[in-house]
């Protein structure tokens, strides 16, 4: 019995390890590929003399692709989009968690529908519109359109955090003599701070990882890493080591952030539909 159980345990662990090989091998392979020197690219697989030349080329902008600028652009538009969504979304999330009123449910469901709307429905008109308004290939234009990604996420999840918070804490603050604004900033907000941090990071990751918006709405000045990394694949003889290095550089920020907010991810990923 115990032997059988232990065998089954090993079998289960083996199955798990098999899955994780599948999940992690591509990342490991990118690391290997990115360290290859160009002249050994197609001649060997695992044995080669590792070099950081690939990273140097990518970060030195020497292929005519200003990757560092793309990286900065990604940073600026993602942070900008999250900050705008927080400023606009937190009050809305709070209001719709605390008061049931007509407009709020409509707003909430409109926001939810953004989550499932095909991006191109909005982008193509925006493409035309941005050309006219001079927003094409600008930070402002990108931050605006990224609201489609960050705003629903922040509003829906923060609403579920606020709803979990008993309103009596703020009521007690009111009776202690604080105004409603103070009750929000001194009582409610500090209590949902972990939620705000987690959802901001998640929204940042989603904004960073977005591809369609910068693909169509930027060309050079405001282009981001996701589009930039793809351009290493172009050309007659694609430089695989450079592509791999670019891909790795562009996934470092989201991966690092993801590992820090793991605990809060479930609520974030499912829009609060499954409470942790």
């Amino acid at each position: 019995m115990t032997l059988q159980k232990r065998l089954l345990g090993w079998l289960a662990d083996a199955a798990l390890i098999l899955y994780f090989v599948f999940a992690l091998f591509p990342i490991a392979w990118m690391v290997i590929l990115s360290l290859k020197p160009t002249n050994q690219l197609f001649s060997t697989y695992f044995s080669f003399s590792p070099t950081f030349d690939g990273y140097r080329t990518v970060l030195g902008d020497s292929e005519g692709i200003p990757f560092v600028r793309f990286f900065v652009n990604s940073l600026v538009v993602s942070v900008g989009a999250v900050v705008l969504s927080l400023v606009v979304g937190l009050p809305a999330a709070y209001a719709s968690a605390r008061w049931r009123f007509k407009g709020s449910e409509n707003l909430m469901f409109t926001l939810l529908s953004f989550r499932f709307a095909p991006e191109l429905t909005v982008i193509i008109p925006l493409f035309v519109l941005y050309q006219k308004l001079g927003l094409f290939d600008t930070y402002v234009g990108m931050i605006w359109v990224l609201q489609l990604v960050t705003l629903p996420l922040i509003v829906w999840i923060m609403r579920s955090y606020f709803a979990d918070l008993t309103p009596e804490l703020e009521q007690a603050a009111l009776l202690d003599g604080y105004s409603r604004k103070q009750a929000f900033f001194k009582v409610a907000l500090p209590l949902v701070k972990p939620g705000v941090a987690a959802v901001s990071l998640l929204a940042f990751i989603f904004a960073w990882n977005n591809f369609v918006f910068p693909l169509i709405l930027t060309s050079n000045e405001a282009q981001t890493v996701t589009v930039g990394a793809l351009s290493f694949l172009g050309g007659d003889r694609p430089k695989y080591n450079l592509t791999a290095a670019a891909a790795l550089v562009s996934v470092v920020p989201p991966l690092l952030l993801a590992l820090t907010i793991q605990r809060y991810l479930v609520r974030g990923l499912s829009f609060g539909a499954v409470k942790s």
Partner: protein
Amino acid sequence: MIRLEGVHKTYGKTTALDGLDLEVQEGEFFCLLGPSGAGKTTTLKTVAGLEQPDSGTVELDGKDMAGVEPYDRGVAMCFESYALYPHRSAYDNLASPLRSPRHRLPAAEARERIGAIAELLGISGLLDRPVGQLSNGQRQRVALGRVLVRPARAFLLDEPLSHLDAKLRQQMRAELKAIGAVRRTTTLYVTHDSLEALALGDRIGVIRDGRIVQTGTREEIWHRPFDTEVARAFGRPRINLLPGVIASDGGFRSADGKVELPLGVPVRENTDVLVGVRPRDITINGPGHELTGTVYVTEVLGRSVEVTVRLGEQQVSLVAPRADTAGLRPDDPVRLTVRPENLLLFEADRPERPGRRIESTR
């Protein structure tokens, strides 16, 4: 002074307050008693301005409070859920009102005040602890302290003793009214515990389904309960209620005809009634009208004994001194006596409402 008049409040389809009228006098300690869901907490929150009534008026010290924000009403409230700030220490929770723009005190003065209140409530040793590390009873005392720490037009206390252990509750019950601030301040105290209401309330209001059923001093509520449900709410063991009819001689006859009692109230013959008598008003071999029955069960309650006696098909319980019940065993015959002036007469209970008390002519 707190005055509510015709206050209605609904949440969606459920009615919380259904035309509630209530008046608490200046400096009075008023207990609002009722089961959960009766509208007690909603009443407090309406007074505090945390809930807006759908209709009706709320007055504090004679001023209409419509449109007045909670922080401008000058009332302090102790929440049943404590509503303490979980991320702060007990001290900071107590200090919260004294740091607000409306009740600000210099830090030194605030420290002194908090120290005194903490001493009073026996939580001096806990002030540095985060609220998360306190037991429910300790939290409840901190919540009470946050109310008492600053002057208020009125105190609104929502079951402030419910989470204390039995011994501490009894002690606090005795001490609460002696606290100077409480003695001076109009207090609306909500509880579901009738003993607490009887012990504390200058006056008691019984609330049911969002309305006040009866208001009065403890004597009035005890001796002249509005209906059978109010009568049942006060006193343990519960009041005995025997069903029967009015006989041709104007007396009471139980449904099975085995119990007959004289009544001093003129009621039409054959009316269905309930006759109520409190367990402590029944004596064994005392003066008064006599009834014979058999002992069903006895239970010792310290110095007295609760005896359940079968009278025909009815059972009545009574509480008697131990000496009177010595040697009583189940199925022993026993002679009970009741004084007619201790009898309460009610209409029979109906599905739509409990039977109301029929006024005696005395």
